[in-house]
């Protein structure tokens, strides 16, 4: 079982991103459960979405407390809550940010970091900071757990139409191409 926790803010599409990713993974033959966290649907408030993937049927319909991967689609939500809470050793962290790795605090458990300046790209593509599909591209690039083609197909099957679909397909590809992936050497405890 591989557990992914998506963090964002209300209005950015963290829940939708979970749904698209789930559809793409199912198309590749995986079992997937995507459960959003439940708050008041308020723009700007921290929100999370939980996604489990496995080669066999997944029975638990619960939140995720020990994620293998944290996918953060907002640049500042990490200041409001601890997005790394419970992350497993050798974990993966994907972050929307304009900063280089050297300016970020990476917890000891994280072994792989994928960074994408998704806000800048989103402003270019959508004229609004909608980062979810960009970060799905970043996820595919960083983890290799889902192909860009499957994500593309999932988007085409979704409710996006015409210009909106075109923009999101562009965002997906941009996120994939414009992500830098960093492997962190295991640090020796001081």
């Amino acid at each position, binding site marked *: 079982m591989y557990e992914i926790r998506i963090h964002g803010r209300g209005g950015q599409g963290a829940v939708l991103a979970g749904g698209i990713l789930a559809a793409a993974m199912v198309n590749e033959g995986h079992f997937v459960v995507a*459960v959003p966290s439940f708050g008041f649907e308020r723009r700007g408030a921290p929100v999370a979405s939980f996604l489990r993937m496995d080669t066999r049927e997944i029975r638990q*319909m619960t939140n995720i407390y020990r994620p293998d991967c944290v996918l953060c689609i907002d640049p500042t939500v990490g200041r409001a809550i601890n997005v790394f809470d419970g992350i497993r050793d050798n974990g993966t962290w994907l972050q929307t940010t304009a900063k280089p790795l050297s300016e970020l605090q990476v917890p000891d458990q994280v072994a792989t970091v994928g960074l994408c300046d998704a806000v800048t790209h989103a402003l270019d593509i959508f004229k609004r900071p909608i980062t979810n599909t960009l970060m799905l591209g970043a996820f595919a690039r960083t983890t290799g757990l889902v192909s860009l083609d499957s994500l593309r197909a999932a988007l085409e099957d979704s409710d996006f139409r015409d210009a909106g679909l075109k923009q999101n397909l562009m965002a997906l590809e941009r996120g994939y191409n414009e992500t830098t992936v960093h492997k962190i050497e295991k640090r020796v405890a001081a």
Partner: protein
Amino acid sequence: MSAVLKPKSKAIVCDGNEAAAWAVTLARVDMVAVYPITPQSSLVEYLAKFVADGKLNAEIVDVEGEHSVLSVLHGGTLAGARTYTGTCGPGLAFMFEPYLRTPGLRMPMVMSIVTRDTLTPQSVWGGHQDAMSVREVGWIQMYCETVQEVLDTTIMGYKVAEHRDVMLPVNVCHDGNYLSYGATRVELPSQEEVDAFLPPPATNWHAALDPDRPMAVDPLTGGAGGPGPAMFVRYRKGQCSGMQNALAVIEAAHEDWARIVGRRHAPLVESYRMEDAETALVTLGSMTGAGKDAVDEARARGERVGLVKVKTYRPFPVQAIARALSGVKAVGVVDRSVSFGWNSGPLFQDVIGALQFAAKRPAAMSFIGGLAGADITTDHFGSVIERVQALAQDGQVGETVWLNEKD
């Protein structure tokens, strides 16, 4: 066993609310009346979309509140239509007067309760308290574990409701949040399969509006003493018979579903790893998956633990529960709601009542979790298993345990 029809289902990814809307579409419902309320809202949005897209050929009636929702559907049902709605929490409360009237009128409709904890404090999150608050009104109530079960059970609900020996309304309960918004892979049966399973709506002509045979429905039976109350007694007794008949009809509907669609769900109760079990968990709804995982973990440690899931809650499958739990030493019943009268969970009350009929009666304790959207995780179930194993050892029944109190 070979299926009569070749399965032609296709896989989709959807949440429980969309699954219910697909079920309504496949069941060829004639009339839907709706008022949106969290966490049901997206369900009626899907229905509106399916009608607009031409997938669902139904009259959709937007009304000013839930009282009118059910009143409109009473009219539709009396005219012979297959009808549907969904609600929860405060919406169900506002619907209560026509909700009370529905089973007595022997109206075969299906209504989803997208379960939500009740006020107050303010809560828009999941919990079974709304459905539990109406457990003695006379509706059939079935609880779903998975998104797939939501889809399948909503269609099966019509077969049960419209059966001649039943003619009662059915609530298909799916957990707010965890099932309403939880998305998984779902097998969508083909229209041919559903048509083979579910015949056109069976009108209850005993209580139908027929211009050729005008009559009043919902009569006053007469004053105190004598034939008036005696008639009332016959109505009530008939209603109770219909509920009891439903047990066999629910089993038959699930069997037909397995035969035609190729997917089998336990109709009344499901026993999971109960062979040789010394202790058992009893669960309801979407919590069951985490419960089964916790049972697997305990079994891997060599512990003889099993789980009994209650699918059909009303009518309560008394004999099936007694059989399933007979022989274990201790039982832990996990409720997602409370009984204010008993300081325990309502399912716990039902289970200990049913255990009166068990050949060997185990000790039982009540656990309450998952209120107002709280999670019931495998760790929570692990703690329940530990406590129930202690109960099996010493027989000391403790106070009700509140699982999320210290989360």
